């Protein structure tokens, strides 16, 4: 069953940035920063032939019923004409897709979840390093306000409950860690949504697949979702 999707216009309510996001932004070197809006996802319901809001509640129920995300967000090879060389990652936060460019004008497309405020920046970075079942260390602000996070103040070991999931790709600008990551998640139903984190999340099977295909140094292009990040008039 095909579930096409689109991201219509919606203004979100504000600039409340999660602690994790705040940490990303604070250390995220000057790519392009701050963001006030995020787009909302819709998927096409083939029964009613209408676009329906794809929010957290619907995502949870869909995942519970199907044990997977809607088809549009599943890993698939798609036609993709580009001048970027194979191995380049292109992240389209607006449509919740991550493309890994392949030979022959194709790409492997994965569904992604992005920060509640969008990805937070746009530009060109590279994969500086990768990790399998990475340790997650909550930022100090989160430790201070969240008892669940506080117990991992010195770092939560990698594992199925770890927020970073099965793999993490650490994004660098030059030799500097931007603090942004492409990582897995223990909450696969959140793929396709704008959820708090500030980084790019993929389900664990997808991030494991992506991790197996990319090389350290791979070019990563983050598109203009959150275009207000750019220098405007």
């Amino acid at each position: 069953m095909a579930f096409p999707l689109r991201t219509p216009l919606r203004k979100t309510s504000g600039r409340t940035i999660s602690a994790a996001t705040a940490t990303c932004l604070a250390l995220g070197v000057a790519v392009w920063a701050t963001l006030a809006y995020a787009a909302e996802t819709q998927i096409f319901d083939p029964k009613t032939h209408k676009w329906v809001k794809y929010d957290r509640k619907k995502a949870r129920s869909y995942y519970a019923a199907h044990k997977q995300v809607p088809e549009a967000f599943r890993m698939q090879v798609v036609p993709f004409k580009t001048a970027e060389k194979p191995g380049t990652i292109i992240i389209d936060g607006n449509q919740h897709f991550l493309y890994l460019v392949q030979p022959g004008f194709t790409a492997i497309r994965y569904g992604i979840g992005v920060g509640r405020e969008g990805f937070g920046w746009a530009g060109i970075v590279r994969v500086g390093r990768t990790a399998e079942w990475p340790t997650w260390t909550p930022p100090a602000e989160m430790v201070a306000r969240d008892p669940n996070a506080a117990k991992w103040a010195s770092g939560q070991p990698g594992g199925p409950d770890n927020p970073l999931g099965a793999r993490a790709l650490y994004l660098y600008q030059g030799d500097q860690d931007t603090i942004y990551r492409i990582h897995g998640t223990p909450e696969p139903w959140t793929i396709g949504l704008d959820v708090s984190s500030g980084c790019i999340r993929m389900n664990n099977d997808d991030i494991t697949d992506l991790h197996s295909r990319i090389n350290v140094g791979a070019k990563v292009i983050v598109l203009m979702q959150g275009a207000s990040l750019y220098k405007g008039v």
Partner: protein
Amino acid sequence: MVRTIALKLSAAALLLPLFYGASLASDLVVGMPNWPSGQASANIIKYGIEKKLGLKVEVQEMGTLIIFAGLDTGEVDVHPEVWRPNFDSLVTKYVDEKKTVRLSPKQVAATQGICTTRETADKYGIKDIADLSDPKKTAVLDTDGDGKGEMWIGATTWSSTTIERIRAESYGYAKTVKLLEAPEDVAMAAVDAAAATNTPIAFYCYSPHHVFDLHEIVPLTEPAYDAAKWKVVLPSDDPTNWLSKSSAPVAWPPSYFNIGFSSKLAERLPKVASFLSNIDFTPKEITEMSYALQVERQDPAKYAQQWIAEHEDRLNAWSK
């Protein structure tokens, strides 16, 4: 194709020692800019001259400012693509005033403006520059959820980006569209993603450029260039009031580029000057060069050798 002076300066500065130390072994030096068609044509010039005139030619990558400085002194002999009106200030200084640089009489026509994809034009009705001033139409270009469309107008350091901002103010769509500045790779990848998902997009474009072969790109129609209406004050001339003093509610003036070469070369090797003056690349050939190097990732030297092998008739014509 508005190349950044700043980038060229920095790149050229890095290459300066190489350039001055390496030109002794060859009969002439062709400066090679960092854009694909310039790299292809620099190598075609090299292999063409070597084959038809029997001279040793060296290709060296360097920025336009350094190439012009070398043309001025005679330490660089050729610039394969002198873009106009983008490099008018250099042409005025070295060609018109100092007369140390000459331009080939043959030009390659180029264009600049705002483009969309075929999908955007046909399905969403964005076909003319005036459509950008209609917020109902430009709402489909929104990517951040504020109801206002976004549009890339060039890289921050490009001289054309300033002019695109002036044009947006003059036409009025600066009020209905958020103007974005970003590296070209980000913008082109956005076009790729838009084309792959049939999502509407509008963006600054120039040709010859490989994007026209990669996707079905549609330039927006707009009023023809009118010199009387083209009043551009650059930030370098008036850092505070450049925008308010400018007005350009018309298309770009005709753009083009020529091969440039040193006047000293013309005196030293007149047959080379004649050869360069006869080179008549077409816009289609320039786009093919851009596509071959940027999309197909062909090596510039190998591409040029193949091109030479397949265009003997052209070389014969250039050698007359």
